[in-house]
């Protein structure tokens, strides 16, 4: 049973470019959340997708957008890249159950470097 998979593992982009990161959730999970983690910091919540819609959003500009597909996989898009966007981008999946809090299952992330 595959866990959360993210691609690519590493990426180098130039300022002003656009990037798309991909995530496949753990089997049986229907919710995907994206996080940005700078070196030495805790993960920062970007947004969460459920039923192909953005349900929650953190304090990130509109340059950060996403999508969830019918098979529950997800993409994170970042436009007009800035040097400060360099970070580890983490995808986490979970199962939406109002009866209890489903733990997050994380991938190992995409390391984005903006030069």
């Amino acid at each position, binding site marked *: 049973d595959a866990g*959360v998979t993210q691609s690519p593992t590493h990426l180098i982009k130039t300022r002003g470019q656009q990037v798309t990161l991909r995530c496949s959730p753990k089997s049986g999970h229907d919710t995907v*959340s994206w*996080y940005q983690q700078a070196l030495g*910091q*805790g*993960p*920062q*919540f970007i947004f*969460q997708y459920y039923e192909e819609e953005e349900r*929650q959003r*953190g304090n990130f500009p509109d340059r950060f957008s996403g999508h969830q597909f019918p098979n529950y996989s997800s993409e994170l898009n970042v436009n007009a890249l800035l040097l400060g966007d360099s970070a*580890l981008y*983490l995808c*986490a999946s*979970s199962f939406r159950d109002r009866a*209890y*809090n*489903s*733990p*997050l*299952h*994380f*991938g*190992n*992330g995409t*390391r984005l470097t903006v030069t």
Partner: protein
Amino acid sequence: LAKTTQPISMDSYEGQEVNITCSHNNIATNDYITWYQQFPSQGPRFIIQGYKTKVTNEVASLFIPADRKSSTLSLPRVSLSDTAVYYCLLGDDKIIFGKGTRLHILP
């Protein structure tokens, strides 16, 4: 802002029991308490989750007092490989990570 408060760092020795306490004075009625472990350049990994009293699994125990305003993660007989950052989180909507606790295990 994170809804939890943890010590920034802790040191311990191999073979010792380590207890990491998390404060969450404003925990919501329907919030579970979940702990994660993170190694460098990896995603956080689920350790344990609880709602009240005590929960134990093969790697840790979680103690939650009746008022649920704090919780304590207990790692029995730690080893060098337990050196990591540990996060205490609440709920499952818009989960906010704090800075976590950097646990350093010494030989």
